[in-house]
């Protein structure tokens, strides 16, 4: 957690080379509404924090968007993201590699 926080600080204070960082914070912001601030889930909502490798996370989102995996709302949500955005989410939520 500390490392990620420090990384965020570093990214947010940097120049154009890391201009994606606020985008990541904002994308995560969309997940937080249901999955909690750190993706921990709770009260019936699945945790998405460090449950998958990056590849697994991307594959899961693809399966949701293709309706290949049963879902309530994730199919409808996942189709709103670009592949680049999914990659950013995967990098954030996946297990450290």
């Amino acid at each position, binding site marked *: 957690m500390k490392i990620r926080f420090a990384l965020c600080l570093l990214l947010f204070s940097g120049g154009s080379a890391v201009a994606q960082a606020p985008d990541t914070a904002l994308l995560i912001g969309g997940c937080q*509404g249901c999955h*909690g*601030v750190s993706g921990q889930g709770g009260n*019936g909502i699945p945790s998405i924090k460090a449950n998958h490798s990056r590849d697994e996370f991307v594959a899961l989102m693809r399966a949701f968007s293709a309706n290949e995996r049963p879902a309530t709302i994730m199919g409808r949500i996942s189709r*709103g*993201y670009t592949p680049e955005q999914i990659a950013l989410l995967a990098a954030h939520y996946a297990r450290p590699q």
Partner: protein
Amino acid sequence: MALSRRAFLAAAALPAALAAPRIAHAQAGAGRVVIIGGGFGGASAARFARDNFPALDITLIERSRSFTTCPYGNLVLAGRRDMNSITFGYEKLAARGVRVVHQSVVAVDAGAKQVRLADGAQVPYDRLIMSPGIDLRWGAIEGYDEAASERMPHGWVPSLQPISLLRRQLEAMPDGGRFVMVIPDNPFRCPPGPYERISMVADYLKRAKPRSKLIALDAKNGFSKQPLFQDAWAELYPGIIEWRGASSDGRVTRVNAAAMEVETEFGEKLKGDVINVIPPQMAAKIARDAGLANQSGWCPIKPATLESTQVEGIHVLGDATIAAPMPKSGFVASSHAKHAVACIAASLAGRAPPSATFFNTCYSHVGPDYGISIVGVFRPGANGFAEVEGSGGVSPRNAALTAERRREHRQLEALYADGWYYSITGEMFG
């Protein structure tokens, strides 16, 4: 609070140049951000700023010491929740380093970049976020003013009237009584809200007063998640609910609170034992006074940054804005909040604003273990905002699901609705 209230107000009373600690500005992207309104938009903005942009100095101005959410108010009405479980304080936000000021704002001076409070203090800012919420349009329905709302509660703006008033009336209603709901035309706060309310009132009537009826008089012909709601009403509450749209003379133009009677466009008069009037709405007074609203009564904003198109340097969030096709929902206000904060942080650091993607998930409880949802992902479009093509939409209808999958789907969405509420209120106030 990091700073005592007295010290803060003393500092706030100084001219802007003196009040700002220069040392803070030495940090990249530092600046004073003032947030007016501590609802879904304002509280989310404060939390997101503290979590992600430590260089920002955050002041949240909210007149009330506690916040009762509109979401889940309908479950209080059904007797499935109590008021305490939907009411939150600002202590945790303060503990996270947000300067929380419980005062009314009397004026926003965008030229001088300061906000004047009811106690006379001036709060200077570098960037201002306003998440003011809505006001009811008293008198838009003839006879429906604040006094009439004591007999015919709205239960739509919890700061004016707790949902508990309507709950008490519902409890006092005789079995075999008539509950009348008056529903406004678009745009209004929480598009599926009146229909969740119909469902939750019917849930209570079915259990406690099964001979009673609910008549909903609607000023429009269609509504959010309509087929899903109507399927569920037929399935769960047969014979209890009658919904009438505008083309079936559903538009109420006049009420008589003394007679407990409403009158439709074409002159039909209906009495009710309990009458819930959800009147037409507009952006809250503070936003209109600050010049943020146009002739529609709502606040136009720039889609890329959510800045007001009317007044420079003010970001406007949530229900007060013109942001269709995004609904006026708590989830959208929270999504707006995060984007506005990120834009402000970028602007103070001399960077371009981040690209905008907005999210909405609105669950409705229709019955016990029966939830439905609408989801949307939005980006700035050629003209305002646009839903990302192929994404979003509502839960599948009964006919599209096997019996087993249907039960599971509705149960899961009711469970996830509770989970959403737990997560988003935890984010704002936990």
